[in-house]
C-alpha cells in the first residue's frame, strides 16, 4: 500500500504549552484512519496543521511524497486535501446547491474574462458545475434540500452538507472532524455508513473521533493521541487491550 499522507515529527507549541510533540504516522491510499484521543489530546491541532490553518513549530506534512508544510491552506486544497470543521461551518446565506458549488471551486477552468463576457464555454461549464453539485448532494441523499438555505436546515442535514462541500473538491485525502458529534444515534449511524461506503470509495479518509465504538466499527486503523503524543497506532480491535490507551481514557464514559 502506498503512503499517501505522511506526518513527520509534527510539533506545535502555543506560547509555552506544547500541544503536539513529535507526532509521526503515515496513511496509506484508500485507508480510513481514526484519530482518537481524549479532549485536549491535540487531534484538532493536528488536523489544522495538516489542512494548513496554521504552521507547525517543527516537522513536515507530505502528500504523495511532496512536502506541503509551507503551502497555504487553499493551495493544499488544490493539491487534494479537504476538511470539515468541528463546529458546523457552511456558507449560511446560500442554498445547499450553492454551498456545494463553492466547493467545486478548484474545478473551475474558465478564466475571469470569459466569465465577464459570458462566453458559451463559460456558460456550458456553469451548467455542468451545477449538475455536478447536484450529483454530490444526491450521493449523500440530501438532493431534495438543494434549493433551501443551509442556515435553515436541521443539524443532521448541515453536517452532511459540510461533508458534501468538502467532497465536492474531489480530495485525495479527506479530513473529517467528528462528523457524528451532536447528532442523534440514527443520524450518526447514517453519517458513518455514508463515510464508510460511498465516501471512502472516493478518497482516503482521516477521521477525528473520540467515540471509540465508532472507530472500532468503521476504521481500518486507529491512532491514539495523548497529551500531544502518539500512544497507539494499529488495529482498532487492539485498542481496549492496550494499557496506555486504557489509562488515558480511564474513567471516560466513551470507552464503555
Amino acid at each position, binding site marked *: 500500500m502506498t503512503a499517501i499522507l505522511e506526518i513527520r515529527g509534527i510539533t506545535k507549541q502555543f506560547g509555552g504549552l506544547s500541544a503536539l510533540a513529535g507526532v509521526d504516522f503515515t496513511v496509506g491510499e484508500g485507508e480510513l484512519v481514526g484519530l482518537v484521543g481524549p479532549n485536549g489530546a491535540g487531534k484538532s491541532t493536528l488536523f489544522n496543521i495538516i489542512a494548513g490553518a496554521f504552521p507547525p513549530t517543527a516537522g513536515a506534512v507530505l502528500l504523495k511524497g511532496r512536502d506541503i508544510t509551507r503551502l497555504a491552506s*487553499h493551495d493544499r486544497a488544490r493539491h487534494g486535501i*479537504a476538511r470539515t470543521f468541528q463546529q458546523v461551518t457552511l*456558507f449560511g446565506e446560500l442554498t445547499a446547491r450553492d454551498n456545494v458549488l*463553492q466547493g467545486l*471551486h478548484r474545478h473551475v477552468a474558465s478564466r475571469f474574462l470569459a466569465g*465577464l463576457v459570458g462566453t458559451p464555454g463559460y456558460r456550458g461549464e456553469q451548467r455542468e458545475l451545477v449538475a455536478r453539485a447536484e450529483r454530490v448532494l444526491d450521493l449523500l441523499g440530501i438532493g431534495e434540500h438543494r434549493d433551501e438555505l443551509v442556515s435553515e436546515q436541521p443539524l443532521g442535514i448541515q453536517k452532511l452538507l459540510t461533508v458534501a462541500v468538502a467532497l465536492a473538491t474531489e480530495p485525495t485525502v479527506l479530513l473529517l472532524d467528528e462528523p457524528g458529534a451532536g447528532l442523534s444515534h440514527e443520524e450518526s449511524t447514517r453519517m458513518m455508513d455514508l463515510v464508510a461506503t460511498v465516501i471512502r470509495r472516493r478518497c482516503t479518509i482521516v477521521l477525528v473521533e473520540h467515540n471509540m465504538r465508532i472507530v472500532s466499527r468503521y476504521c481500518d486503523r486507529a491512532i491514539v493521541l495523548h497529551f500531544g503524543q502518539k500512544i497507539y497506532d494499529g488495529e482498532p480491535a487492539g485498542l481496549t487491550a492496550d494499557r496506555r490507551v486504557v489509562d488515558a481514557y480511564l474513567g471516560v464514559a466513551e470507552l464503555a
Partner: protein
Amino acid sequence: MKAAGFGVLLLALVTLPPLAEPYMLHVAIVVLMNVVYAEALYVIMRMGYLSFGHAGYIAVGAYTSALLATKLDVSVWLGFLAGGAVAALLAWLLGAITLKLRGIYFSLSVFAFAEVVNAVFRAFDFFGGPAGIAGVPRPMFFGTRLNTHLGFYYVVLAAAVFSLVFLYRLAATRFGFTLLALRTRDTEGLAESVGIDAARYKTLAFVASCFFCGLMGAIHGHYLRFVSPFVFTFFFSTDLVIFNMVGGLGSFWGPLAGSVLLTTLGEQLFAAGYYKSLVYAVVLLVVILALPGGLIQVPRLREVWAARRLRWARQPVATTER
C-alpha cells in the same frame, strides 16, 4: 423581458437628453456618478466589508486626472483611465495590509487612510493645498471642448454604462459568487479549505471597487472643473454606505435603487438645511429597521416581515463580525 427593459432604458438615456433642460442633465450626471460609486462600494459590501473611506479613492482619481490635465497637459481621456489606475494601485497596496482585518477594524483603517489622503492633498502646494485645483478642463471631442451639460452627460453615461456592466457581470458571474463565500471570518476559513485563495479574491474585489471609484472620481473632477479636499469628505463616504443600505445589499439592483432615490430626493430638499439630513437619516433608519434587506425587498414585503418577527431572539447579544 429583462433585456428588452434594458434596451428601452438605454435608448431613453441616449435619445432623450437633447430634449432635457440643463438642470435635468445635471441631476442625471450626479445620479449616474453616485450609482457607479454605490455599485463600486457594493462589490466589497457584498463580501461583508464596510468602508467609511471610499471618498479617499474617489479623491485620488479626481486629483490624478486633474493634475495630469493641468500640469502636464495630458489628454483628459487618458486622465480618466489614469485616475482609475492610480486609485486601483493604492487600493492594491492598502488592501494587502488592511484586507486581513475584518469588520470595524477594516472600516476604520480605510477611514484613516482617507483622512491621510485628505491631509496630504491639503498640506502640499503641489496638490493645490486647501484651495484645491481650479480650471480643470473638460475633455475635447473632435475639436470641441465638452463644456455643455449635454456633451459631458454622454461622457458620464458612457463611463457609467461601461462601469455598471462590468460591475454587474463581476457580481453575477463566478467571481462574484466566490466573493459571497468570504462574507465572514468563519466562511473565509471554509472557503480556503476548498481551495479559494481568499486574499487574492478580496484584493481583486477591492482593487476593482476602487478602480471604478477612481475612474468616476476623475470624471467627477472634470465635471466640476475643480478638485478640492473639501469635496470628497467623510460624509461623502457615509452617503455611499447609506445608498447601499437603503437600497439593499441583497442584489445588484439595491445600491442602484438606493442611490437613484436618495440623490433625487436630495435634489428636492435643496433648501431644507438640516431637515435634509434628518430626512436622509430617518429614511435610513426606517428602512434598516423595517426592511433590513433594503428597498429591493419591497416586492417581497410579506415574506420578509414574517421572517423578521422573531429574528433577534435567537441571536447572541454580541454581534461579532471581525
